[in-house]
């Protein structure tokens, strides 16, 4: 292969490379885009859309050719085909990753803050954004456990459930409001994080993953069967909405938001309010995580991921360090859970199945373990993608799986795989993914 020669690559090879890409695009697009299921008379019918497939393949070919002849001309072959599998990490991107995240961060924040004011933001977009933000927050919470401390937790949804049920039960039994219950839910989830942490801390790798998975299922099964307390499969109804300094977002009432501000009632007010709540919660999660990373605990988490034995030889109490990671991760899961409960107004164990844990973990892994910006990108792409392919129902998981395979092949360490140092002396240099440990979990 000409991959070894650093000089310009011959044109024939570039065309061949583009053709190869187009072939892969064809293989992918033919079943996904080419065949559409439609409801025909007497069952499901297939609708062929070969013209669309042709356009996509053409676009891939042309785009690849263009890139090959311009940007990639001098860089040696881009990974295509089996070369992908030989690459350990996204080294070529290592240098760009950091500057990229520097631009994306503020830009994304600005868009997020202004989103409700943008012209295309109707109810659908806001609902979708709220969901995406919930997953971003969950991803950031899990990132502490998996990305920083390197402990593979497959039962993260348990803390989400604990947060949701804590709020729902406190609110319906004791008539407490969202803002009082929010910290309580977080504390309860953190408490359960510690309870889970104790028995599993001795475990490593696969064993840890299996036990956390079991914990997630146990919580769900308890919620399902403890009928008197949790309402079993019927769930809990009538969870109150959050209030803005005592102002309610209801059409009628003594103290409603729209009357106080002299507006006419709109159901959008509540949606926008919910949007800003989850945005705030997510930003707090991000802020605290970034802070923690620069504190001794955060550094100990990362050191733990790199080498646990060395940590102990330096006098670090690894048990406590792991427990704090579990507890803090769980706390954010709990916050997200109570938000979920207040937004839905109704919760049942069905919302907290293993697939949720898998989804959150997928967001963290695809985003790049330990990368905050990566989680955002992965959550948007994934949840947006799910939504976009909603019509395809039965192909959704297939596409999801294919996308996973594709990203894992393309960037085995996730989209943003570089690590940024927590403390610097002179110059901040991103650390390539191939050097960073992934923990023993």
């Amino acid at each position, binding site marked *: 292969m000409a991959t070894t020669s650093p000089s310009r690559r011959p044109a024939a090879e570039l065309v061949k490379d583009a053709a190869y890409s187009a072939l892969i695009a064809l293989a992918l697009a033919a079943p996904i885009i080419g065949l559409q299921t439609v409801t025909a008379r007497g069952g499901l019918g297939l609708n062929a859309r070969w013209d669309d497939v042709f356009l996509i393949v053409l676009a891939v070919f042309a785009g690849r050719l263009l890139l090959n002849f311009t940007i990639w001309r001098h860089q040696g072959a881009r990974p295509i085909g089996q070369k992908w599998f030989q690459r350990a990490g996204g080294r070529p991107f290592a240098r760009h990753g950091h500057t990229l995240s520097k631009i994306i961060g503020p830009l994304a924040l600005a868009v997020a803050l202004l989103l409700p004011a943008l012209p295309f933001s109707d109810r659908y977009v806001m609902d979708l954004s709220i969901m995406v933000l919930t997953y971003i927050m969950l991803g950031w919470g899990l990132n502490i456990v998996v990305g920083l401390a390197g402990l593979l937790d497959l039962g993260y949804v348990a803390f989400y459930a604990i947060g949701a049920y804590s709020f729902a039960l406190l609110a319906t039994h004791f008539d407490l409001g969202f803002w009082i219950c929010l910290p309580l839910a977080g504390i309860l989830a953190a408490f359960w994080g510690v309870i889970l942490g104790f028995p599993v801390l001795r475990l490593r790798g696969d064993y840890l993953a299996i036990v956390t998975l079991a914990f997630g299922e146990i919580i769900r099964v308890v919620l399902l069967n403890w009928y008197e307390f949790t309402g079993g499969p019927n769930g809990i109804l009538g969870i109150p909405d959050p209030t803005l300094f005592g102002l309610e977002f209801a059409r009628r009432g003594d103290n409603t938001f729209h009357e106080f501000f002299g507006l006419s009632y709109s159901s959008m007010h509540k949606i926008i309010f919910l949007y800003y709540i989850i945005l705030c919660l997510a930003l707090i999660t991000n802020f605290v995580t970034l802070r923690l990373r620069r504190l001794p605990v955060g*550094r100990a988490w990362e050191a733990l991921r790199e080498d646990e034995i060395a940590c102990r030889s330096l006098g670090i109490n690894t048990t406590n360090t792991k427990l704090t990671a579990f507890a803090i991760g769980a706390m954010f899961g709990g916050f997200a859970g109570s938000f979920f409960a207040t937004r839905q107004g109704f919760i049942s164990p069905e919302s907290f199945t293993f697939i949720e844990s898998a989804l959150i973990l997928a967001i963290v892994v695809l985003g790049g373990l330990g990368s905050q910006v990566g989680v955002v990108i992965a959550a948007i792409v994934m949840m947006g993608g799910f939504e976009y392919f909603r019509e395809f129902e039965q192909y959704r998981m297939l596409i999801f799986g294919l996308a996973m395979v594709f990203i894992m092949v393309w960037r085995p360490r996730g989209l943003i795989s570089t690590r940024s140092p927590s403390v610097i002396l002179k110059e901040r240099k991103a650390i390539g993914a191939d050097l960073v440990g992934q923990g023993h979990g």
Partner: protein
Amino acid sequence: MSETAIAAPSPTPRWEADPVLDVEHLTMRFGGLVAVDDLSFAVGRGDITAIIGPNGAGKTTVFNCITGFYKPTEGRLTMRRAEGEEFLLERMPDFQIAARAKVARTFQNIRLFGGMTVLENLMVAQHNPLMKASYFTFGGVLGLSHYRRSEKEAIGFATSWLEQIRLIDRADDPAADLPYGAQRRLEIARAMCTRPEILCLDEPAAGLNPRESAELNDLLRLIRDEYQTSVLLIEHDMSVVMEISDHVVVLDYGKKIADGPADVIRNDPAVIAAYLGVEDDEVEAAEEEVEEIKEEAERR
């Protein structure tokens, strides 16, 4: 100091008079294998003490017992800190041995935090004081100035060590990117950043070239003289051992076969028979081992 020991073989050598670490009747069994067999020796305060012996003699096992990574089958390990506090190491968990008894160690196959920068490695080593300064994270999250000051001091201490080991220009590079010799030095500096009273080094000269080896000797003397830290080292390289150690303990098959000042050990017939006598094969084997370690470190 060794002169006095030779001139008048006093009944109590210096290291027994004021030991920083006392190893008494240490035995470690792995199933049927007795890796360390009823071993007793003392590490003098302010000495460089070397443990030597052929491969598989049980040297690393002794270290693992001292630092709490193994629980000894029998025996007592007493650490006497300068201010007079005593610790029975065999009863303490490993991290407390480092944190409270102030015993630091390095590993035969280097264990750095490869994905973290050189500076970060030294910051992790100062975890416990920094944790206190951040009021166990709560103060730190709120951004209290007390913590920021402590962190600056910690960076300053780390920087002084980086200058000492000539890695100041690479402070912001990942540790895994350093060449082998630099990784060895960094691991020693990292252990020193825990401000230990005794530093245990497992084959620190393995894989170093003669120039690096000479540098290591200077570094060890500096640690002993400037930082008042006692050094306990395992070493294969006899030139290093003979040149810098105040006291040498020789192990063979888990048993102590000699114990004394370096120049006495050099001429001890039992030692020559067990260790120095078979020099040729032994050196070859050791060199092979070193090559392997080196390759492994390079790969990582």
